[in-house]
């Protein structure tokens, strides 16, 4: 399939079942809420090395936030619900509770929940106060600027991680321009995050390594510097830069929509191909076919 001068490779993105949650952080100002959101989503690019994947979903106006103050919603994903809970306790405890004026709420409704505020409350050293309103418990933990308010339970739901597109450019500049455009468009969408720096990853990985201690290593098939030495190279001679955008979403539809929007936005001069990363279909629970995302182009 070709759109303008860009070929959409007939392949699929291999995505995985993960567990995700939405965290809503509010504060006296948007800047403080964003500071906490940036902190909680730091070092959360890949479950391989960070134990979770997290990103900022969107800003929330004071009118629609839980406590009438400006806020930011964050999505966080891990491989199981318990892991989500552990990461939330660590990250909210270190990155949100520490940030002046913030409060932290669960932003999902689902059958499963994990205890977060109920564990962080012990920081209050016995001075913490529980409040139960409308069958929902939250905690008031005394801190030096007043109180940190946090929900007792955070809801967790089955989600989809590892949706992705690969942008194969003739030059680094062209690939960066296309990736930036794709990220800008995808970040307007709800229920997804792009966990890598500015939404883009250059060190795409394959499963395994010649070194036994590593479970993943560089994706040599897409490294331009290895075109002549890698037996698995997927790159034509005029491709000199590949960038990947990874998408985690609260459901498959959101990931598919983001991939479609990303592909459409990345079709720019200098982009020879748009492809996707997969492991042959043997690992992930979901195979998102690129051509099926763009039926109108066929």
């Amino acid at each position, binding site marked *: 399939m070709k759109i303008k001068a860009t070929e959409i490779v007939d392949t699929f993105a291999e995505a995985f079942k993960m567990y995700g949650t939405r965290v809503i952080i509010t504060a006296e100002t948007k800047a403080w809420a964003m500071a906490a959101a940036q902190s909680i989503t730091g070092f959360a690019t890949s479950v391989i090395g960070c134990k979770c994947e997290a990103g900022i979903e969107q800003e929330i106006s004071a009118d629609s936030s*839980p*406590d*009438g*103050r400006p806020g930011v919603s964050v999505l966080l994903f891990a491989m199981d619900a318990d892991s989500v809970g552990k990461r939330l306790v660590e990250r909210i405890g270190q990155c949100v509770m520490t940030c002046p004026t913030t409060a932290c709420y669960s932003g999902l409704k689902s059958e499963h929940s994990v205890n977060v505020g109920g564990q962080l409350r012990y920081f209050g050293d016995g001075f913490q106060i529980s*409040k139960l*309103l409308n069958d929902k418990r*939250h905690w*008031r933990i005394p801190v030096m600027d*007043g109180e940190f*308010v946090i929900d007792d339970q955070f809801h967790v739901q089955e989600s989809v991680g590892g949706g992705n597109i690969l942008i194969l450019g003739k030059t680094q500049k062209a690939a960066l321009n296309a990736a930036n455009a794709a990220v800008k468009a995808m970040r307007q969408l709800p229920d997804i995050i792009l966990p890598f720096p500015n939404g883009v990853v250059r060190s795409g990985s394959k499963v395994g390594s010649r070194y036994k201690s590593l479970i993943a290593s560089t994706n040599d098939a897409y490294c331009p510097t290895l075109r002549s030495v890698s037996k698995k190279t997927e790159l034509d001679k005029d491709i000199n830069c590949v960038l990947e955008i990874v998408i985690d979403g609260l459901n498959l539809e959101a990931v598919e929509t983001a991939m479609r929007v990303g592909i459409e936005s990345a079709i720019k001069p200098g982009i020879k191909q748009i492809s996707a990363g997969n492991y042959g279909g043997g690992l992930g629970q979901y195979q998102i076919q690129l051509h099926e995302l763009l039926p109108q182009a066929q």
Partner: protein
Amino acid sequence: MALILKLHTQPDVPLEADCICPDKFAQLSLQQVEQLPVFHGNRQVALGDFFHCSGDNDGHIQIEGDISKLKHIGSMMSFGSIRISGSVGVHTGAAMSGGEIIIEGDADDWLGPEMLGGRIVVKGNAGHMVGSGYRGSTVGMQGGEILVLGNVKNETGHVMRRGLIAVNGNAGDFTGVNMLAGNIFVFGEMGIRTGAGMKRGSIVSQTEPQMLPTFSYACRYRPVFLTHYLSYLVESGFSIDPDMTRGEFERWCGDSVELNRGEILFYTGK
């Protein structure tokens, strides 16, 4: 459609009508409902001696007429609803654990004593001992909520342990006396000795109460958790100064003759 009880004969003396409750009406025909026993003073009579019964017995009860002499309506109620078109007598909703009672008029003393859950809404005023424990009880209200759009009298929330009592108007003396925990909101004037003997819990006032000497000033700040309660109460029909959600409160801790873990928060302005 609810089961409608229409008062046709005003009782001469208080009528003990704890049978007026969705739990006790369950599975009964209208004729059987009318035959349920009530105490008119010290004499046992039938509910039908005072009420016409009509409609569907679907867990919802609508009472029409002035029933300010009826006691114990909705006692031990666990589900459904009771809507009272006028005023109601004492002990309404005693020890109820679920469901909703809506009173369009006033409620007499002992509204929702030792309540465990559910919701009572009074659109008029309520009397003494709202959500309290009975004399000799160590624990009063243990859950649920009582919302009074008018005023209340003395000892609101006496020994309450959990739940929410909110008063849009004024409160009498000894609000939250010996309170164990829970939340009391008063948006009018407070009487004297607010929070006397309280162990834990929150008493929130729109006006500055006369503070007991056993309470100590902590700070002036903006309690974020209050925004949840205030917006909930606005949704429930309370008229609240919108500036309160963005305003500051003084926090006083007490009562130091007890655990000293309770708090009185009063609004100081924007």
